[in-house]
């Protein structure tokens, strides 16, 4: 098996240039690539376009990249919970493309799957439809949406092996497996890295073919946004 291991986050993100397009897995703060975000903060790059369902919070996740003015544009479905984000957006420093969450997920999947465009019902009759081709199938209207691809995709998994195979945990899976398929280079950070052959082939969520670099991350904070307990 092909060995995809790199030493750490610093090595994994060392060649990410300014002004490139990145995808980052995660939903809210769950399943985000914490180690790679920290390593990116040490890099002197800017002008990034980031595809991510959310944009983190002020002092965690993608919010940290925003604070350091490394981001030119966010492509997301929901970007609340972030005062610095709002400030940059209103001042015109930051661009935002808002996309229905299912359309975002399907566009990313299409990017990895070689499907340049597809029809979806989400957004028909709304401002999302502006400028888009629409067509009726079986009496219902649909919009034509195009694939999304990135220069790099950065994902976080639970377990991984040296061949790049990944297993996610709980709802930390979210956008990670599809983004892994849509980056020219996919970087995966995992909580536990094992030798190829140690994972059950039947339980793998992301086949190693999609992953170019993998390393075992450390010190995961896994911050909780809405700590909700039963009474």
């Amino acid at each position, binding site marked *: 098996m092909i060995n995809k291991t790199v030493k750490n986050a610093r090595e994994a993100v060392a060649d990410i240039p300014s002004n490139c397009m990145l995808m980052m897995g995660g*939903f809210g703060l769950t399943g985000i690539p914490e180690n790679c975000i920290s390593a990116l903060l040490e890099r002197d790059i800017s002008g990034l376009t980031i595809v991510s369902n959310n944009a983190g919070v002020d002092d965690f996740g993608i919010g940290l990249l925003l604070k350091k003015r490394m981001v030119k544009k966010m492509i997301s479905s929901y970007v609340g919970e972030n005062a610095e984000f709002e400030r940059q957006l209103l001042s015109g420093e930051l661009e935002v493309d808002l996309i229905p*969450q299912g359309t975002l997920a399907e566009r990313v999947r299409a990017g990895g799957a070689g499907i340049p465009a597809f029809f979806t019902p989400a*957004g028909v009759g*709304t401002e999302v439809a502006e400028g888009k081709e629409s067509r009726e199938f079986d009496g219902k209207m649909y919009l034509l949406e195009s694939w999304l691809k990135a220069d790099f995709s950065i994902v976080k998994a639970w377990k991984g092996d040296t061949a790049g195979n990944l297993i996610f945990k709980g*709802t*930390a899976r979210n*956008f990670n497996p599809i983004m892994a398929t849509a980056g020219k280079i996919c970087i995966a950070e995992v909580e536990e890295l094992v030798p190829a052959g140690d994972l059950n082939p039947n339980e793998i969520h992301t086949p190693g073919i999609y992953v170019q670099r993998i390393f075992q991350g450390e010190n995961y904070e896994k*911050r909780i946004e809405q700590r*909700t307990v*039963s009474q």
Partner: protein
Amino acid sequence: MLTKDQIAQRIAKEVKNGQYINLGIGIPTLVANYIPDQLEVVLQSENGLLGIGPFPTEEEIDPDLINAGKQTVTMAKGSALFNSAESFAMIRGGHVHLTILGAMEVSENGDISNWKIPGKMVKGMGGAMDLVASADNIIVAMQHCSRSGESKLLAECSLPITGIRCVKKIVTDLAVLEISPSGGFILRERAPGVSIEEIKSKTAGKMIIEGEIPEMIFE
């Protein structure tokens, strides 16, 4: 006038055995508390979980297990986990039978606005546009009027649209209304002590009143 919990309680009566259901943030989340135990239903969370369980105890909390509102949750017996593309595949493909969500405005032909107020910070539509474009049955839970007293049931939505001709039923603090296929809010039930006249005066869109309009009953 119904409390938020009573709105949720009334909506829970719409739930049928064997349904897969997506509950939006706010009042819709409360609906889960009122679904009768004898009904077998499964709650879907669009971030990748079928079978949302109760909120966790302090000991059970797992940061890798949240719902679409980013709240920590547990998994019910027989749950399944999946990625975001698969999640919206099941939503768009019509496998989720019932979507319950909040709204800022609903129009008499079933259009819904719930994601954007011009001039205010735009947070995004999240999964709402996919949900309203997909499920066969969409029920809105909301207050009948805005805080400033304006009706939220209109001839046409004034705010940017989330989806067109999709809402089937609305449960507000004052009434239960259905959208007529030919347009109009059909009044079905009144909140206890609320008159038809009051509902009429607070509904800006066309209201259809046919026969007796019973009061809701809460056990």
